[in-house]
Structures are given as structure tokens and as C-alpha cells.
């Protein structure tokens, strides 16, 4: 497979995963905001923090307002990571690798694009319309995953697509946990109250983890939630589970299952091992924010290593990799 094409597939899936995550964050937050005291900053600021685009947001908008945050994350052309831009980029990438994907996958990504494009030009959308839109985006992305799963051969392209999705997913889970965990622990008044519970439940729902968490832990506790989202090996959106899956992709792509045969495998193996041999109390003792920050940096390093190991393997190509600003 062409290196450029592999890179394009990898990013196509990262963009899709990102868009889907944004849609879910916002939908959950909407739901949450109905139950909380009307404090726009407290409710909507964490959303921007999760995405890592706080600096850009403050440069574009003087203050945190619900509508501004939603617009920024959904339709803002100035935000490279808005849903509009993510889906557009995913489609551009899909178009560029049209020969590598199936008609089903292409048409669904294309349909998603028209969904966002047509919604972006509608003025004065109601909350109800927007929530419906977020649901459509989530469903639309999941339809792509489903078609990918059902129609694409498990070839190189498949593994690069999966890698992109998993790295992005691990990154987003760590960011959600980072932003919310702090925010919640910082408001001690609320601990144990029903409001507090709603908020912890919302954190889980932001990464579709609520049901599976309840099944495994029953009770909502900060450390239980952190443990589930970072270290669980069965839940598909936990950071460690993502790394374990990503590792299998790299084994398929590299052909060696013992040790490592390239830097991507090495970096990923190191991070995975760290998570395998740590428990949640160690992480809390070390500082949750510092630990999650470390994970995010390592995920970026893994992404660069994948780029250098597979996408740009000769001195003949010089191309800058796409990336998300931290």
C-alpha cells in the first residue's frame, strides 16, 4: 500500500472518531445542562478544554457562552477540529483513497458530509434540532464503522484505519477524564450530592461508558470511574483497551509479535506496559492530571512514530503529517 494512502486512511478514521466524540460530548452536556443551575461558564467551558482548543476559542470569542461553544465545536470553519471540519476532512481523505475503500463506506461518509454541510448553513437552530443533529452525527459515524467492519478486508488499510481510530479514541477518553475529573473534584460542596452523581454519570456517558461501568462496579466513585476509563481491559473505549487493540494492529502491520521491529511498536509497547503494571491508587497518588497529560504526550509520540515508520519511509518523500494541536 502507498505510504501516502496509508496516512490518508489513518487520518480519515481519526477525523471520524473525533467528530463522533464531539457530537457525543455535546449531546451529553446538553442533557446535563438541563439539570444543573444555569451557569454557562461552569457547564460549557470544560467542553472546550476537553478538545484542547481552549486557546483558539479564547482568541475567537471574548467569553464562554453556550451558543458560542456549540458553534465553535460544531460548525466553526475557524476551528480545524469542529465537527464540520472533521467530517469535511474525513471525506476529503476518503475521496483521496476512494480506490481503497468500498462503495458502502464512501457513500456513507459522503452522506455524513452532506448532513453537516446542509446543517451548517441553517440559521437559528433550536436546541432540539441541534440534539437531533448530534444524534445523526453519532449514528452516521457508527454506520461508517459498521460498514467498515462488514465490507473491508482485514488488509493493511484496515489496520491503519483501526490504528487511527484507536489512537484518537484513547486520546479523547483521556481528555474527557482529565477535564471532568478535575472540574468535579474541585467543587467539594457537591461531593455526594445528587448533582454530583449526575455529573459523574455524565462523564461516563460522554464516552458511552455508563452502562458497562454500572454493570462492573455498581457504585459511582471517582476512583472507580478513573480506573474503568484508564485501565479496564474489556471496555473498548478505555485507554488500555485501545492500546491493546492498537498493539495487535501494529503486530499485523510489522509482522513481529515479540519485542518490536519499529519505533511505533516500541513506543506503543512501552506505554501499554506502563498501564498494565500500574494501579489506580498509584495514578491518583502521582496526580491524575499529570498522568493523563503524560498519556496524551505519549499518544502523540506514537502517532509520529507510526508516521515515520510507515508513511514516510524513504528520504524521497517529504510531507508534513497532519496533527491535532495540543
Amino acid at each position, binding site marked *: *500500500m*502507498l*505510504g*501516502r*494512502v*496509508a496516512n490518508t486512511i489513518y487520518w480519515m478514521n481519526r477525523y471520524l472518531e473525533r467528530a463522533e466524540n464531539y457530537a457525543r460530548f455535546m449531546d451529553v452536556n446538553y442533557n446535563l445542562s438541563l439539570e444543573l443551575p444555569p451557569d454557562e461558564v461552569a457547564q460549557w467551558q470544560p467542553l472546550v478544554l476537553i478538545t484542547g482548543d481552549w486557546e483558539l476559542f479564547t482568541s475567537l470569542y471574548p467569553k464562554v457562552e453556550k451558543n458560542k461553544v456549540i458553534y465553535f465545536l460544531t460548525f466553526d470553519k475557524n476551528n480545524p477540529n469542529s465537527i464540520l471540519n472533521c467530517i469535511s476532512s474525513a471525506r*476529503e481523505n476518503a*475521496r*483521496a483513497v*476512494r*480506490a*481503497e475503500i468500498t462503495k458502502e463506506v*464512501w*457513500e456513507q461518509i*459522503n*452522506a455524513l458530509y*452532506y448532513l453537516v454541510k446542509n446543517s451548517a448553513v441553517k440559521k437559528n437552530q433550536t436546541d432540539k434540532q441541534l440534539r437531533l443533529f448530534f444524534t445523526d452525527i453519532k449514528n452516521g459515524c457508527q454506520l461508517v464503522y459498521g460498514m467498515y467492519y462488514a465490507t473491508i478486508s482485514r488488509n*493493511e488499510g484496515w489496520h*491503519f484505519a483501526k490504528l487511527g481510530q484507536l489512537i484518537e479514541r484513547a486520546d479523547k477518553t483521556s481528555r474527557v477524564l482529565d477535564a471532568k475529573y478535575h472540574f468535579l473534584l474541585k467543587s467539594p460542596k457537591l461531593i455526594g450530592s445528587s448533582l454530583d452523581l449526575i455529573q459523574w454519570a455524565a462523564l461516563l456517558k460522554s464516552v458511552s461508558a455508563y452502562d458497562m461501568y454500572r454493570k462492573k462496579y455498581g457504585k459511582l466513585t471517582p476512583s472507580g470511574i478513573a480506573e474503568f476509563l484508564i485501565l479496564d481491559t474489556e471496555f473498548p473505549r478505555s485507554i488500555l483497551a485501545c492500546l491493546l487493540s492498537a498493539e495487535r494492529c501494529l503486530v499485523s*502491520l510489522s509482522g513481529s509479535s515479540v519485542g518490536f521491529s519499529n519505533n511505533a511498536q516500541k513506543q506503543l509497547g512501552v506505554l501499554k506496559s506502563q498501564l498494565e503494571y500500574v494501579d489506580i491508587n498509584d495514578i491518583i497518588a502521582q496526580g491524575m492530571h499529570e498522568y493523563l497529560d503524560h498519556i496524551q504526550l505519549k499518544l502523540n509520540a506514537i502517532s509520529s512514530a507510526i508516521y515515520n515508520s*510507515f*508513511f514516510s*519511509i*524513504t528520504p*524521497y*518523500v517529504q*510531507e508534513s503529517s497532519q496533527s491535532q494541536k495540543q
Partner: protein
Amino acid sequence: MPKLNFSAYDTKGFYDEMFDENQNIRPNYQLFAERLQKLSQKKLNTLQHATDRAQLSLGMTFNVYSDNQGIERILHLDIIPRIIGNSEWNQLEKGLQQRIKALNLFIQDIYNDQKVLKDKIIPKEMILSSVSYLKELEGFKPPKDIWCHITGSDLIKGGDGKYYVLEDNLRCPSGVSYMLENREILKRTFPELFEKLDVKPVYNYTHTLRDTLESLVDIDKPTVVVMTPGIYNSAYFEHSYLAQQMGAALVEGRDLVVKNDMVYMITTHGLQRVDVIYRRVDDDFIDPEVFNKKSLLGTPGLFRAYLKGHVVLVNAPGTGVVDDKAVYAYIPRIIKYYLGEDMILPNVKTYICDEESDCKYVIENIHNLVVKQTDASGGYGMLIGPKSTKKEQQEFITKIKAKPRNYIAQPMINLSRVPTIADNTIEGRHVDLRPYALYGDSIKIIPGALTRVALEKGSIVVNSSQGGGSKDTWVLNS
């Protein structure tokens, strides 16, 4: 719901593909007309609308050169097909095969022995001064002596009901994906008609294309790729479509490297040798070492590898010389010279401004003629005399006088018309015809074509870049 009727349909002054001069339905359209007359205009509009949506969802979009990036258009597909009877098609097929065979011999000759020039069949300067003539190819013979593997000639039908070849398009003819996808869409629009009408299928085009490309090298399982200028090219949809249908890699110039005069593509597992390149990048841009130095679309060294015979380029570079509109005028003589046969498919009468008497005629009769720049295409650089102002005519006369070699003129042909959906009614619109030919072991004409239609009332410019649309083209088996 009132059914469609054609009582107000106007056929005056033009050859209509569906109706004869007495308003009677031609035999090839009989069944279709019966089907159509069972529909209401509203139902027809619904079917048309579904087609537009299908095109968007398939991603059959293109960017027009003058537009900003990001503005995508679909090539409007009118759902009323162009239907061609079997005997009419057979004649067309023979004519195209004859023409392509002769033109291929001609290209081989002008880059090698130049007999046609020595025998003064065509003026030497005309060939050597053509911007598309590549001196670098002198003495070169491509694999199997084939230059024009893929052809998409533009034909028109005049008021006399006869086909004429307007352009041969031996470089990188585009549009074949529309022929194929239009058919898929129309099969959904009129499924029952395909069963009854016995329409010749076109689906095997991409299989034949792959076979043609593979036949050019004596390697078991050669690596075949499609080379595209990239995602912003107006024909990108087609490039990716063909690559995907053929199971070939779609590469850009930057995905290829040339080492020791061999061409490789850069893969996730290192370099992989490439044997055949179906390139959709123009000659001038394929190799910045030899041609356009500023080209970012090509691969340095590609032409060198080609001359050494280490890679096959399809179509061969240098075929553009036939697309020169001044050379076109000589094609009847070229066919006679190489094949000893009379031309089956006629040319449109062409005045060569570089020849004194013709030039005089053109200047005196410019208001009746269509004047074309010899090295332009896509409907650009053209004056349609009867539809132009005095000022425009004067401008062209000045240009012709300054550089007569750059201009030819042709009488205005009344392009034939096909009923077309227009603003809640059906009216005749002018069409042309672009069939596709593949030259490998033999010359195969695909039984179908892209019919381009000028959507604007009265217009005869069918180019997609200038408001043209398309129609599916049905060739009947009987």
C-alpha cells in the same frame, strides 16, 4: 394526473434523434416512447430528482477550473437516454476502428521514418511546429507499437442525419466513468426497459481496460497504476473510479520515484516496481526533468524510464499532435495514405487558416463559421460566428491574421437533438457523442458512449465546463 404528450414538441430545423421530420417516433425509440407516455410530468420530475441525488451520493462531482476550491458540481444527467440502433452503431464502430488504426500508424511514422512528411501528404512544418509534437520521442517505438490505447472521439450528427468526427481526443480523454455510472443510475430509473429493449452492456469496460493495460508488457501479474494530478483535478472522480474498478493503485507523481531508470511506488513496505502507468496527467506535466520544469504533478525521471522501455505510459506521450485542430483537417488523407481506404466516418469540412485561400475565405465568412484555436480544447478559445457580435468577430480576425497557424474554421453544424427535461416540460436539446475505444490486442469500441447535451436552449456548447450535461447512451442489440 395528465400524461406526457409530445404534441407541442418542436423538431423544426434540426435532426431529432427520437422523432422524424413528420413527428413520427423513430423505431429505436418506440418502446421508450411508450413507457414515457405512461408517465406524468410530475413523475418524470421525481425520477429526475432521484437521479440528481444519486449522483451526489456517489460523489460524481467535479470542480470547474475557474471556481474556487470547494465548489463542487455534478454533471447533470438528463434521464431521457440517447438510443442508437444496431446498424447505425455497427457503421460507427467500423469508422472509429479505421480511424484509430490509421492515426496510430501516423503517430508511429512521424516520430520515426516520417514517410508521410517526405511524401508531402501533410506539410512538414505543420507537424514539427505543433506544440504537442515531442522531439524527444524521435526514433522511439512504444511497446507493441501502440500509441493511442485509449480514445474518446467527439462525434456529432448533422442535419443530414450523418455522423461527423469533430475531435479525436488521443491524449487523456475523460468522461468514461460517467458513461458507466450513468448506466447504473438509469438501470434504476427504467429497470423494465432494459429487460425489454436488449441494450448492449457497458459494464465490462474496466475489465477490458485492465486487460489492455496488462497486454502491453510480457510480465505475469504486472503492477498497473492510475496516475492522477490529485484530488483537486476536475476529473478526480473518474481517476479514483477507474483505479478502484480495476483494482489498481491510484498514485500521484509524488508517490513515485525513479531509481536506475526504473519506476517505483513508495509503499508502507518500501519501494515497489511499477510496470504500467495509466496516466491522467498531461504530457507537459509528467516529468519536470524533461518538460514543464515547474510541474509538481509529475515524477522526475519518468520520461527517461519510459524511453528505456522500463515502464509503459498510457496513452503514449506525443499523441497530442493528432489533437491539433490543423492536423485534423488532414485526417482523410492520412487514412487514405496508410490504409488505402476511403474514410468511413467523415470529418467536418475544415478551413486551415495557415493556407492562404482558406484564410481569405474564413475572414470573409467569419459570421457563418465556427473558428477554433488549434491547441485549445474544452470549448475554450472558440468563436461561434452566427452567435457572435461584430466586435468579437473583429477580435478573432486580428488574432487569425497575427498567427494563422493557430486557427482553423468549420461551417456551423446543426447538432442533432434529443428530447430533454427542461423546466417542467420536454424540449429538444443539442447533443454530441463520445464513444470510447481501447487499443490492445485489437481495437475495441465499447457499445455505449457519453452523450453530452447543451442544457441551455439553443446552445451548441456541450462541454461540462460550460453548462453541458450528459445522457446515458443505449446501443440496441437489434
